[in-house]
């Protein structure tokens, strides 16, 4: 068996064993390069496997139905209108080309701009098949290709706290019950040496990464993050310290667990004010119990009964992180 044959066999997990493992194992025992390939092919598989199956956005069905039911009266979807539009473009191009031939630039080829590639020379996919320049989930458009950042944009990006933090601190503020002290001036958290991890990037690597991230973010998303950052900076210093302290606890939660926290905060919002105070006390009491008792007591609360597994586990991890 050659190296090429071996690699073509091991790339398909389901059929790698067809014809017996013996030739594969025999080759691997004698070929360090193929051993390295096999190891790293498997490592790449594991690397690309998400921690939790990603879920499509909730509005996907509605968006598809909306797209499929595009108004039949839309003139741009009608073949006749498309033909008419194409004819208009051709006429304009013809007269535009004639006009250009009369310009000084046309008389001086060195000053003329380079011609655009001909549309006819490159096959152009149908409008519905072209990848869009702007795509969106719900109301948040994300630009796929963006020009380099200006200095002003870089300054704006560099001043922001970590994006994950900005997307989470409001949730953390609503999860008071799960922390020893409510957000407020009563128990400001001491800043750790080196500052909180949510601080804006302050190393060359950190800044480079931030600029890369910022380049991929749409104008609308940028505005949202800037607004979140401003809202955070407008909070009293004590609150900021407490929220950043909470972030140090949850920043390593998986994406799934972060979603669980957001859902948990929404569940708490649904509880009426009186029950909320009682629930908050109960959860704080659980937080003071020995670690070994916390999970069972938490799951025993009437509030916890209807929660999903994701919400229960996120809260449990939070209670055990303290």
């Amino acid at each position, binding site marked *: 068996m050659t190296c090429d044959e071996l690699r073509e066999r091991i790339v398909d*997990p389901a059929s790698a064993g067809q014809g017996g493992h013996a030739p594969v194992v025999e080759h691997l025992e004698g070929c360090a390069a193929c051993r390295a390939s096999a190891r790293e092919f498997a490592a*790449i598989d594991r*690397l690309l496997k998400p921690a939790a199956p990603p879920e499509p956005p909730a509005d996907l069905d509605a968006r598809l139905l909306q*797209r499929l039911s595009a108004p039949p009266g839309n003139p741009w979807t009608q073949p006749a209108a498309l033909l008419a539009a194409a004819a208009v473009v051709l006429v304009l191009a013809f007269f535009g080309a004639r006009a250009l031939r009369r310009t000084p630039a046309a008389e001086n080829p060195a000053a003329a701009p380079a011609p655009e590639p001909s549309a006819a020379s490159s096959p152009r*996919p149908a409008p519905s*098949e072209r990848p869009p320049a702007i*795509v969106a989930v719900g109301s948040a458009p994300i630009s796929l290709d963006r020009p380099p950042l200006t200095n002003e944009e870089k300054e704006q990006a560099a001043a922001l706290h970590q994006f994950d933090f900005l997307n989470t601190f409001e949730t953390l503020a609503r999860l008071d019950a799960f922390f020893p002290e409510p957000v407020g001036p009563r128990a400001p958290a001491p800043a750790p040496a080196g500052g909180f991890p949510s601080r804006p990037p302050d190393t060359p690597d950190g800044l480079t990464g931030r600029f*890369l991230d910022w380049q991929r973010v749409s104008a609308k998303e940028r505005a949202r993050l800037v607004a979140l950052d401003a809202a955070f900076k407008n909070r009293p210093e004590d609150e900021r310290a407490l929220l950043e302290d909470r972030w140090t606890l949850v920043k390593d939660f998986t994406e799934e667990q972060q979603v669980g926290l957001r859902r948990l905060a929404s569940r708490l919002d649904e509880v009426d004010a009186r029950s909320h105070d009682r629930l908050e006390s109960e959860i704080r009491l659980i937080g003071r119990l020995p670690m070994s008792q916390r999970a069972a007591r938490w799951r025993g609360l009437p509030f916890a009964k209807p929660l999903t597994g994701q919400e229960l586990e996120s809260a449990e991890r939070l209670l055990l992180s303290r």
Partner: protein
Amino acid sequence: MAVSAHSAAAYGPDPGDLLLVATGDDGALKRLLSRWKQPVYAAFERLREPSAAAEATLQTFERLVRSAGRFEPGASFPATLWEHVAHVAQELPQVQPVSVSPARLAESAAARTALQRSALAALPPAERAAFLLTRVARLPLATAAAALGTSEGDVRRRLVHALETLRTSLRPLLDLGAGGADPSPDAATTEPPPFGDAP
């Protein structure tokens, strides 16, 4: 072809629903979406950020619906669906892998994800589609080959090229140990493919 709910059901849930979709049955479309949107989205989500993955998923189902009238009742539904996925994946713009420092990769899950996505999006379209169908969506090789309109041998060759390219572009992550190299020669042979005929 006139298709009733009764006659469509005889072809099995997926082909039957696709035949009903061709008649404008929204309920059948919703059933197909409920069964298949997650694996399709999950495949694209490895390739692009969530909003672009959602857009690619929408394009896939839009193509599926618009071509539903040409679906032959005896044809394989997974091969038909994943053929559209492959087309959409191949049409996504090829990008350069992002360059991220090891320090940032070590500290940021978002940076690791960005590098993974850009590495896959940087693959040549044909290799990217083969990789997506077999290694991300875990289709059996035969289904992937049918969806890609090529032979199993060609899919294998595309996969080898793709994986060798990824060994280079994902090197910082592999060195970081995020993949956790497995010394077992059989490590790549153990996982069953989940999306053969139904999710």
